[in-house]
């Protein structure tokens, strides 16, 4: 699994790099971004995985969120993978922005023709962490995950499906209950088939109900003026209700005036980095 460095730029004393490699899970060339804080020069650092939203590549987050300063200060390695396999020449892959390329939904597809390549869940929870652990000065025991929108959904399910694996989780405007929203229904139908009971394994609000109760502190920020919130794509109330029911700690902050954009992310990114640093650096 050779890594090919695509770019490397100094940022807040550390290095923002982009690598390319051949993914085993996805059977295609994949790019991911990795930020190495100054602290990584002298010791192993915890890793924070960022999962991006629909249509994004590894570039959006690293160029728009302005997370570097906080990551540099807290000494976190931040890894941002792409959102789907690329160039697999699957029919219909490029047809819509909310399915196929740029819309992997962090699931392992079971349906043809997607099941060969669209294994984003396995990629972000297994292959990529392994790759990172093997190639960078990181502490495998200390990892956390966060994301935005579809990536927020990805972050939540990664944490909820793997109790104890992630020290903490947070999300910006996540798809909290994809089985009940249009984006989710479309993607899950495509990747997982029509059996809705299978979908629940990738739905945060459903996963909460069976979560064994390992300590997990969830921070969610949601813009109040987010059009997808009012459109019913995000459904945070369902997740909050489920967590209240199961006594899973969530702090949900409905931020007055903010929308779904990276401006919103950039506003609160430092809060999220600190949230993770609290657990990763404890």
């Amino acid at each position, binding site marked *: 699994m050779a890594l090919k460095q695509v770019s490397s730029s100094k940022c807040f004393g550390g290095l923002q790099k982009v690598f390319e490699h051949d993914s085993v899970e996805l059977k295609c060339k994949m790019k991911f971004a990795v930020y190495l804080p100054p602290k990584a020069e002298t010791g192993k650092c915890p890793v924070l995985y960022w999962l991006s939203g629909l249509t994004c590549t590894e570039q959006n987050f690293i160029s728009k969120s302005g997370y570097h300063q906080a990551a540099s200060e807290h000494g976190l390695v931040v890894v941002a993978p792409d959102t789907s396999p690329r160039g697999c020449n699957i029919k219909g892959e490029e047809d819509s922005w909310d399915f196929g390329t740029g819309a992997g939904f962090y699931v392992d597809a079971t349906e043809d023709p997607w099941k060969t390549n669209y294994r984003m869940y396995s990629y972000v929870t297994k292959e990529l962490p392994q790759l990172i652990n093997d190639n960078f000065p990181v502490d495998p025991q200390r990892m956390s995950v966060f994301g935005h929108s579809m990536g927020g959904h990805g972050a939540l399910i990664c944490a909820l499906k793997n109790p104890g694996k992630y020290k903490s989780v947070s999300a910006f405007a996540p798809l909290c209950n994809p089985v009940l929203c249009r984006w989710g229904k479309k993607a899950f139908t495509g990747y997982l088939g029509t059996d809705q009971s299978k979908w629940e394994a990738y739905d945060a609000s459903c996963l909460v109900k069976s979560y064994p109760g390992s300590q997990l502190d969830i921070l969610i920020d949601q813009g109040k003026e987010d059009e997808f919130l009012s459109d019913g794509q995000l459904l945070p109330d369902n997740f909050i209700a489920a967590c209240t029911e199961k006594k899973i700690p969530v702090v949900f902050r409905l931020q007055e005036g903010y929308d779904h954009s990276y401006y919103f992310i950039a506003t609160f990114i430092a809060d999220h980095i600190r*949230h993770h640093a*609290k657990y990763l650096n404890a």
Partner: protein
Amino acid sequence: MEEGAGEAPGLGRSAASKDFRFYHMDLYDSEDRLQIFPEESTRMRREGVQAEMTHEPMRGGVKGKAQRDLGEEVDELVHLYGLEDDHELGDEFIEENTPRIEVSEYPSYMMMGSEQRDWRLTGEAAQGEDLGFMGWGSVGQCQDLREAYRYSHGRASEEYECYVIPEEEDEEEAADVFCVTCKTPIRASEKDQDEHKQHEVTPLSKALESAKDEIHKNMYKLEKQIIEMENFASHLEEVFITVEENFGRQEQNFESHYNEILETLSQKYEEKIQALGEKKKEKLEALYGQLVNCGENLDTCKELMETIEEMCHEEKVDFIKDAVAMADRLGKFLQTKTDVEISAQPDFEDQTLDFSDVEELMGSINTIPAPSAPVINPQAPNSATGSSVRVCWSLYSDDTVESYRLSYRPVQDGSPGKEQTEFTMTVKETYCSVTNLLPNTQYEFWVTAQNRAGLSPTSERAVYMTAPCPPIIKSKEIRSCEEAALISWESGNLNPVDSYTVELSQAETPGASGVTESVVGIPTCECLVQLQPRQNYTINVRALNVGGPSARSEPATVHTTGSYFPLNEHTCHPWLTVSKDGLTVVRSESRGPTREPVPSDTQFTRCAAVMGNLIPVRGRHYWEVEVDECLDYTVGVAFEDVPRQEDLGANRLSWCMRHTFSSSGHKYEFLHNKMTPDIRITVPPKKIGILLDYENAKLSFFNVDISQHLYTFSCQLHQFVHPCFSLEKPGCLKIHNGISMPEHVTFY
């Protein structure tokens, strides 16, 4: 000039004194010049004359001595050591000595600077005499003085160098290095010659510098010495005057005593002589009377005898006739007893002379009549305790005192009509510790001295003050944080005290009771003391007044772990009660909102709230509040002047987290100025952590049990805030403070 200097004192004084000033000049100059000559000859000559001339002044002194009384002699001695009393300058002796010590005299020599060069040309003969005079004093001293003088008066440098560098070098090539071993300048070329081969040499300029330094130092020393000597001399003069006065007084005293005794004796003598004469006269008169009497008797007897003899030659008849008459007469005569006892004894009665009164006078010859009034001292600092003062006084040194009578009474402030009791005690010493006094109270003291001759007048009255009572630390009101503690106390004294001292010791070292730190001069009953984090301290307070410090107060303990604050019960809404430990706030069921309390500036009257007293120290403060999940409560911070008639969080002066529980679930608000962000919390906290961070202007709330961050206010804390707690429904809040900050909160 022709004569030896030493001869001068024996001659006319007025003439000599002038000359001596002159000699001084000459002396200095000749010395200067001598330096130019080879060392050996100078020394030799100097020694020679010195030995010869040293005695001269002594002779003069002896002569003078004979003519003067003791007082004058002392005077002279005083002047000899530099005392300047120009009007008394009577002889050359003083004249020639004073300039050596009196710096003020120097300028007169300076004026003669132009003459100096001339003097160099003086012949050898004069030189010898000059040297002789020099010998009178210490040669070295004169020389040093002269150097000092020259230096300080900015003598031309070439002259100076002329003194330092032997002139012989000028004849040949100029020397450019200095042989340290030989202490002589040499030419660099000479260096390799045998003489200086092994010697250490330095450049001449360097040697010159060090020589200058050396001279500088000596000069400084000398100046100091001059000042010291002057001081010493004036001191001596004082002593001299004192001695003279004292002895004069004693003489008078003796004289009056002896006169008194002599008077008494002569009076006694007169009395005795007179008494003796009278006795003698009396005795002689008695004896004479007796003698006369005796003679008369004898005559009578002889007459009788003759008559009887005549009778015997008479006729019978006549005889018989006469014999009968005679027999009667004889019988009568014989019947009268003849007194042959001596009426007066020749020796006189044993008369003892009574000299007791004289003896008494003799005995009292050393006693000063009656002592003068003692001088009572002002109170010495730190000499008093809460119940005693140490009073000191002094007397004139030549008074003889057998005892003192010390009286005192409390100083009255108010009611002047009331007479204060006076106390008096007799003591032998010139001090007395007066006990059983009231603390922090002024007493007026006065003292009289007494001896056999009687009582002195009363001293001035001095006011002494007893030390205060120890203050009482308000242990329950101590506030602390990791860096400091705010201690307050009650004075413990009715009258004001001057200041307070706070003493700290770390409780970690129990054996060593030593005070590790004191804060002194605290004017009020409150002090903020800086401390080290996470330590235990024992704190005492003392009160101070002019009399001294009080005993230590009862100790209080401070733990500098986290921030500790007591609740301010004055702010407590009437529906709330604060437990004894001051850490639990209870709103009980029974007390319904039946009656609205009166609006107040201190007490909360709208929301059932109480405020804590947080230490006014900027930094980080953390505390926790234990709550019931279903309780409606508000916790946060507010400025001290937050309106008491408003809800917490309903204004710009408070920042609070409010929980309300209803059928629809838990509602959490983070209120400031009636506004809150929209935040949902899935797990109701049972213990809320509150972090107040002045530096970053933040107030954060946490769910302690799961280390969850709930919310952070950004607040401009332009002044100090205090923790607030409010209960909107019956229930209780338990406050945990004085605890260390959990690690997770350090991220906020």
